[in-house]
């Protein structure tokens, strides 16, 4: 890997050294490939996909690559190397990038068939072939690599054990507390962990591995063993050629990667750096490759380009386990303090090591390593925010936003600083992460920094005034609806005025919003703080429908829609509606949402119409709001000969539970009494279909311009679980969706999609269910009918006049003709524009 990086640096160098000829002598039968992502080969990533060097690269630069023929000897006097096949090649400069070999402890039987190491694609092919005939596998070594190997074995269906000499897993990178949490996580994957355990012997039966004796004498039966007990630098060639090597191995190099022979350089895992360490990680190797290439093209040593050491930050790429350690993870610095957050139940452990002078020295993150990408570059700098903000889970409070300095290395694999990424945006017109990857290489190594790169790009675009369309509108340009929701919730904000004064982008105490943010904030306030939506300042936020609690129709008149839960209505109720419609001369229609709509009411008629409806026991149907509109239902078990559950009762219950629930967009639902689906539940934001065992819950469907079928969230739920799951689903949606984003779009947009939502609402993966339950509980408890509440207060009723200066006069422009024995609006033909 490092050798390939060296070639890239060399070929990209300006000016290109004249007459440069490059020959690559390789032991492996294939070109350089990505060893860091080797494990993904087991999950289907092909060797081609792992390749780091294509034909075009070699051809373009005229590089002569000779595969499968390792160098056997170096003749430094003659400046030649000779390969196993007997070819001798001369050189001006020889670059050794021979990497390392896996250390196999010299226990008896370590070379029995069935024993493997984990380093090359060929190793993996051999392991896979053996695993097909095996039931149990043991990995020796509980470090980063060992755990990756263990993950691969379990994924292949093997009963897997990890044997670790140290008292905890990943002993190098993480501390005891983190080790405990990590151990539980690994065990949850189905791996048996033995710590404080050495390997005494491999049991050989009939020429094959049959078991393994641990240091305490117990025997583990196993069919295969993978050694992952560390690596040793491959310095044999250098040693034989008389180059200086370290006491414990590694070709000695100076800060320019030069060995004690000026014509020989050594880089990567085979080199012993000036700080006395051999680095088993790819990032320091890449840094060395850059330094060495610079040597070759720039002639005299460039003191700005040296390699004097690197940190040992790592994060584990094992599926489903988030682990990272960086800097002084063990807190060995004098007088340092540790800030700890541990939640053993949720499997989260986070520790930051802070120096006496307030600088971040290092840390350990297990279970939630999201902050790693931001924290690692800050190592060595003072923390910009109180440390507890950085370790607390997101749900426990606002996450601190870190302002990284330009010098902070964001991508440690390629040593790319934040300043370089910003420059890509400002100077090279890069607008997204793929662009940054192309332009700077950042993010193309382990990928751990990609999220952070995305953030930096967005920030930089915003700073450059380039619209990223993130914010709600110009008045809240920095926040999405979901973020405003959290701000209102966490700070307990009860008014638009306070929100825009404290968080709006517009300056000044009297800043105003617009038609985008006002209704959005109005909806957030309504769903969080309760209270009547027309009271005080709230009235100014509502669009005309919410403002008059009715739907504006095309001639300026309004529709009246009483709630009819489950579509079930008494003859008495029908008669009342009929009488009201007759008395006020309204047009009536039965709609697709199981409602009887009355059209053609003027603003000043609305209160008297509703007076009579409320008196007859009707409530607002919220047909005007971004709220629950309807829960349709079929007749279900009670009447239908196919029904298996009482769909009407459930529809009524759901409708009453969620009535008036303000949300980012309108919500529709339906309940069908059996799979014949007469209520069309699968075209709804949440739909329920009865089964013999209980209820199936579908979410994310809708009609409209882009119809979409709902997807199955959970099946065979009992009544209480069903209600609880819908509660949480709706609250999660309300909390995190964008303005006017329906559940279908929301589900396709959010990271992890339906699976994520399922994990959150069914398994409480984020630990926020109690919170969601409480929010819904509050909604259900505090619900009151908006129309009844409006009529009860003369101040609220007073707005329902056509003219402020002539309260009794109806609007003369609202006119009707007749059609099919009902009224029909007269539309406005020509306009008379008059002014003065």
């Amino acid at each position: 890997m490092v050798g390939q990086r060296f070639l890239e640096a060399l070929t990209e160098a300006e000016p290109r050294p004249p007459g440069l000829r490059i020959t690559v002598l390789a032991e492996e039968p294939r070109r350089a490939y990505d060893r860091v992502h080797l494990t993904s080969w087991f999950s289907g990533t092909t060797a081609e996909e792992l390749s780091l060097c294509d034909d075009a690269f070699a051809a373009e630069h005229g590089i002569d690559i000779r595969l499968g023929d390792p160098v056997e000897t170096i003749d430094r006097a003659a400046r030649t190397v000779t390969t196993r096949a007997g070819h001798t090649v001369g050189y001006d400069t020889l670059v050794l990038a021979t990497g390392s070999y896996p250390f196999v402890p010299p226990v008896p039987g370590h070379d029995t068939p069935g024993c493997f190491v984990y380093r090359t694609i060929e190793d993996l092919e051999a392991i896979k072939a053996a695993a097909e005939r095996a039931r149990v596998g043991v990995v020796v070594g509980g470090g980063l690599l060992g755990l990756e190997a263990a993950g691969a074995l379990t994924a292949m269906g093997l009963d897997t054990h990890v044997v670790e000499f140290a008292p905890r897993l990943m002993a190098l990178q993480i501390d005891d507390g983190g080790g405990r949490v990590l151990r539980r996580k690994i065990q949850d994957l189905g791996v048996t962990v033995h710590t404080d355990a050495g390997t005494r012997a491999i049991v050989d039966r009939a020429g094959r591995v049959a078991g393994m004796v641990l240091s305490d004498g117990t025997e583990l039966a196993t069919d295969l063993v993978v050694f992952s007990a560390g690596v040793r630098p491959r310095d044999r060639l250098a040693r034989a050629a008389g180059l200086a090597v370290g006491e414990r191995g590694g070709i000695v190099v100076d800060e320019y990667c030069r060995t004690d022979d000026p014509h020989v350089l050594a880089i990567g895992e085979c080199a012993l750096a000036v700080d006395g360490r051999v680095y088993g990680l790819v990032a320091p190797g890449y840094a060395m490759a850059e330094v060495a290439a610079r040597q070759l093209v720039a002639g005299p040593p460039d003191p700005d380009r040296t390699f004097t050491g690197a940190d040992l930050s790592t994060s584990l790429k094992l599926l489903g386990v988030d682990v990272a350690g960086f800097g002084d993870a063990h807190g060995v610095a004098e007088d340092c303090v540790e800030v700890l957050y541990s939640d053993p139940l949720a499997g989260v452990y986070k520790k930051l090591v802070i120096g006496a002078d307030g600088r971040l020295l290092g840390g350990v993150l297990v279970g939630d390593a999201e902050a790693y990408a931001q924290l690692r570059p800050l190592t060595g700098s003072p923390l910009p925010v109180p440390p507890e903000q950085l370790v607390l889970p997101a749900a426990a409070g606002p996450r601190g936003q870190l302002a990284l300095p330009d010098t902070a290395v964001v991508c440690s694999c390629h040593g790319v600083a934040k300043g370089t990424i910003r420059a890509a945006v400002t100077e090279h017109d890069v607008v997204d992460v793929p662009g940054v990857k192309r332009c700077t290489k950042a993010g193309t190594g382990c990928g751990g920094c990609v999220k952070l790169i995305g953030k930096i790009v967005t920030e930089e675009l915003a700073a450059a005034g380039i619209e990223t369309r993130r914010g709600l509108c110009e008045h809240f340009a920095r926040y999405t609806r979901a973020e405003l929701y959290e701000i209102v919730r966490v700070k307990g904000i009860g008014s638009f005025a306070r929100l825009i004064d404290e968080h709006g982008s517009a300056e000044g105490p009297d800043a105003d919003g617009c038609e985008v943010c006002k209704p959005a904030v109005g909806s957030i306030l309504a769903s969080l703080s309760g209270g009547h939506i027309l009271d005080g300042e709230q009235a100014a936020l509502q669009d005309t429908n919410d403002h008059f609690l009715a739907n504006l129709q095309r001639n300026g008149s309004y529709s009246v829609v009483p709630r009819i839960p489950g579509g079930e209505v008494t003859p008495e109720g029908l008669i009342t509606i009929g009488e009201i419609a007759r008395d006020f001369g309204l047009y009536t229609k039965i709609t697709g949402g199981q409602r009887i709509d009355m059209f053609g009411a003027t603003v000043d008629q609305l209160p008297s119409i509703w007076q009579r409806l409320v008196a007859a026991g009707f409530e607002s149907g919220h047909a005007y709001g971004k709220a629950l509109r309807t829960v349709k239902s079929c007749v279900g078990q009670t009447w239908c000969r196919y029904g298996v559950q009482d769909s009407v009762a459930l529809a009524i219950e759901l409708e009453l539970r969620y009535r008036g629930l303000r949300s980012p967009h309108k919500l529709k639902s339906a309940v069908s009494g059996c799979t014949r689906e007469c209520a069309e539940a699968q075209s709804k934001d949440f739909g329920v279909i009865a089964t013999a065992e209980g209820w199936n819950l579908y979410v994310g469907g809708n009609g409209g311009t882009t119809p979409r079928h709902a997807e199955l969230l959970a099946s065979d739920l009992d009544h209480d679980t069903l209600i609880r799951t819908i509660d949480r689903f709706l609250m999660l949606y309300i909390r995190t969706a964008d303005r006017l984003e329906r559940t279908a779009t929301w589900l396709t947009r959010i990271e992890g999609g339906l699976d994520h939502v399922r994990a959150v609402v069914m398994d409480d993966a984020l630990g926020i269910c109690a919170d969601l339950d409480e929010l819904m509980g509050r909604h259900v408890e505090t619900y009151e009918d908006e129309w009844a509440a409006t009529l009860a207060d003369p101040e609220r009723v007073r707005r329902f006049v056509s003219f402020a200066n002539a309260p009794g006069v109806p609007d003369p422009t609202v006119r009707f003709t007749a059609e099919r024995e009902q009224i029909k609006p007269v539309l406005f033909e020509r306009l008379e524009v008059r002014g003065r």
Partner: protein
Amino acid sequence: MTSTTGTAVETTVEIATGTGWVTICPYDRLTPGRGVAALIEGEQVAVFRTRAGELYALGNRDPFSGAYVMSRGIVGRRGEVPIVTSPMYQQAFDLRTGECLDEATTPDGTPAALPTWRVRARS
């Protein structure tokens, strides 16, 4: 059109008719950030009060739909411009001049501007 900030208790909102001022309603009856409709010599006027306390009066007829609904729009701001958006199809109009910020003309070709009236708050 003028804009004034009223403070006294008995302040009323008045609109100029060409021959004099007519009273619309008490200033406090106007919700900050909303409008009301008024009938002035047979014409419909939309009167708005902003959050900062300014008053504006425009024609109530939405030129795009023809409906007399401008007073029911949302009052806000685009950059420096105080606006009201039509509740029918959401076009924004400059509260100071009545000009439409989104479209210059209506579908039938007439200029998409609202007439303006002079309005004041008087104690």
